[in-house]
């Protein structure tokens, strides 16, 4: 599964017009910003997005995908001025009894893999979003701004949607793999299939407003 593509699609969706569905309610986000070589650097604590229950579910032995998108938005709302994101795959190895965490970040040349042995370490790893590069300071909005983090566990990927459409259009006959029959109605159903609502697996965090002066801007 191409998780990077899924992350890119997710980020693009976030940067585009928001869907008409109800957005999740935002929780406070602990964050700090700084200017590093004319770029905005942010350090976030995503811990509230990973309560104990969420961590426990990440240890279910399945490959779980955590998509994190951080955006800079004007305090009064409006389109994001900057964004960054990463996709974290968490797989709990039931034989080794440890977590294999793979971080895919557009800034990294290749996925970074780490292994942690307990839920607490996993939570620290996931919650840590330090020195995030949010782009040039020139892109900051003219007034005060906030940082918003959207954390979604196991988002529906474009690949999954395509696979679902194919399943609808080419259903398996009598349970025999490969014995599909092309269905016009199924193809129509696939065409009409749209991305599902995010549901309860999305956590939205919002920071306090930051003044441009805090990063040395007038």
């Amino acid at each position, binding site marked *: 599964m191409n998780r990077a593509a899924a992350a890119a699609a997710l980020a693009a969706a976030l940067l585009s017009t928001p869907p008409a569905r109800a957005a999740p309610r935002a929780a406070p986000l602990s964050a700090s910003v700084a200017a590093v070589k004319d770029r905005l650097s942010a350090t976030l604590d995503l811990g509230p997005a990973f309560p104990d229950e969420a961590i426990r579910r990440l240890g*279910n*032995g*399945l*490959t779980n995908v955590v998509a994190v998108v951080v955006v800079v938005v004007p305090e009064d709302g409006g389109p994001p001025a900057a964004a960054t994101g990463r996709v974290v795959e968490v797989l*709990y190895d*039931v*034989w080794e*009894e440890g977590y294999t965490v793979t971080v895919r970040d557009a800034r990294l040349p290749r996925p970074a893999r780490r292994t942690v042995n307990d839920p607490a370490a996993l939570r620290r790893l996931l919650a840590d979003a330090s020195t995030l590069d949010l782009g040039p300071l020139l892109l900051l909005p003219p007034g005060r701004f906030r940082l918003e983090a959207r954390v979604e566990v*196991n988002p*529906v*990927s474009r690949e*999954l*949607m395509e696979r*679902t459409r194919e399943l*609808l259009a080419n259903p398996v006959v009598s349970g025999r793999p490969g014995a599909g029959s092309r269905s016009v*109605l199924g193809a*129509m*159903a*696939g*065409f*009409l*299939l*749209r*991305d*599902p*609502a995010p*549901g309860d697996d999305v956590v939205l965090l919002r920071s306090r407003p930051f003044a441009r002066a805090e990063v040395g801007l007038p």
Partner: protein
Amino acid sequence: MAPPAPPGAPPGPRPPRVSPFALKLMAALVLAAVLPLVPALLAASWLADNNAGVWLAPRVAERLAEVPGTYQELFRARKQLYAEQARTLARALPAGTAARRAALEQAVIRLPLLRHAAVLGPDGVVLAEVDAPASPEDAGWRAAPVEVTLPGGERLRATFAVEASLFAELDETRELAETARDMEKTRGEVRRSIVLVFAATVAGAALLAALLGYLMARSTARRLARLAEAHRRVAAGDLSVRVEPERGGDEVAALARGFNVMVGEVRQARDRIVYLEKISGWQDVARRLAHEIKNPLTPIQLAFQQLEARWRQAPGGDPAFGRLLADAGEIVRQEVGTLQRLVEEFSAFARLPDVKPEPADLGDFVAGFLETSPQLAEAADVSLVRAGGPVPVALDAGLMRRVLANLTENAVQAALPARARVHLGVARTRDRAVLTVADEGPGIEPSLRPRVFDPYVTTKESGTGLGLAIAKKIVLQHGGEIQVGEAPGGGAAFTLAFPLAPAGPMTAA
């Protein structure tokens, strides 16, 4: 198609673009097409929600997600088992390197999953080591090492094998569980899209049915619209309207044919009534004329008779005056006689009795007329053709004799000075008795034919123009009709049609 509306006819309502009949037929077809699909739509929704949900059911995804945990328990049990087996092996290890090696060899044989066993010294040096024989099943197995500390700081390292199939099954199940989990997220949208497709199918079926209904109804609706338009014009008084005769055998074609027949009959009835009313007026005029003319005739006649008597009683008068009086008397008597005959004809026309029909056979009646009319035989060559069998009618023999007399007399007079040839024919159609009277005379000008049955219309110098009017009135009073046309030889041809009397004993109308 109906002819154009007469100038006086009121304009009809503008026909709708799609007739109500077509709309009703379309609606019926749409209902017929959609109603069975509504339960299908509900069934589709149910299937999408339940049957397809077997794969997408939340419980399936939940149970699949629990499978790795089950494997984890299995692996832990295996690890405990291997640790216990290693401890048992450690407790049973004898002293001495050779003995230990022999014990390890026995253990490898006794424990199939023990693939490697070694005794390490406190410094990590291998003191004794045994490997299990290579096996095809070794491919892909995963090692589960266990170390047990022995007395004196030595350690027993036992490496057990975990079957690769377990991990393959785990990977497959995990992939399945991940797919089920992801699909569960699309469950609502899958259901929605399937229901939308069925709804689109229903809408398409309805649209197709509506189109089919429109195509089916269009032709019939047009025909009905033409009938409705013709009906409207009839209601406005235009009895000349006819709808295009249809060759089809359906109800609309039958309705069109029936409409034409009905309008024709109504028109004949109206013409009959109008003519009878007109004749009645002319009869009133004739009665007054007869009265006004007849009254002075007798005094004129008596006065002249007295004048002649006085001339005869006075001898020695002027002989020239006597001759003049005699000539004048002759003229007066002739003219008075002419006026008396005219008065008699007017009176006869004015006092036409009511028809008292009695059952008769039209052919027998005509034959009897010829037999009892020697003057006709003297004046003309008359032939009678009777087609078919009996032609039962109800007629007033006396009045009908007058009709035949008038028609044949016209034929005789038209042929003068030649001898007339008159052809009579009797036949029957499905519901009419037909009598034709044709001659070989000069015929009647087509321009005169529409007025030939009006009173006082005549082409003869001495005629009164009442004969054909009397004939038509009598025929109409019999419920029949009379028409004038042209005989095949060029003469005049009169066609009389009467309703057939019902079968069985004939009674007077």
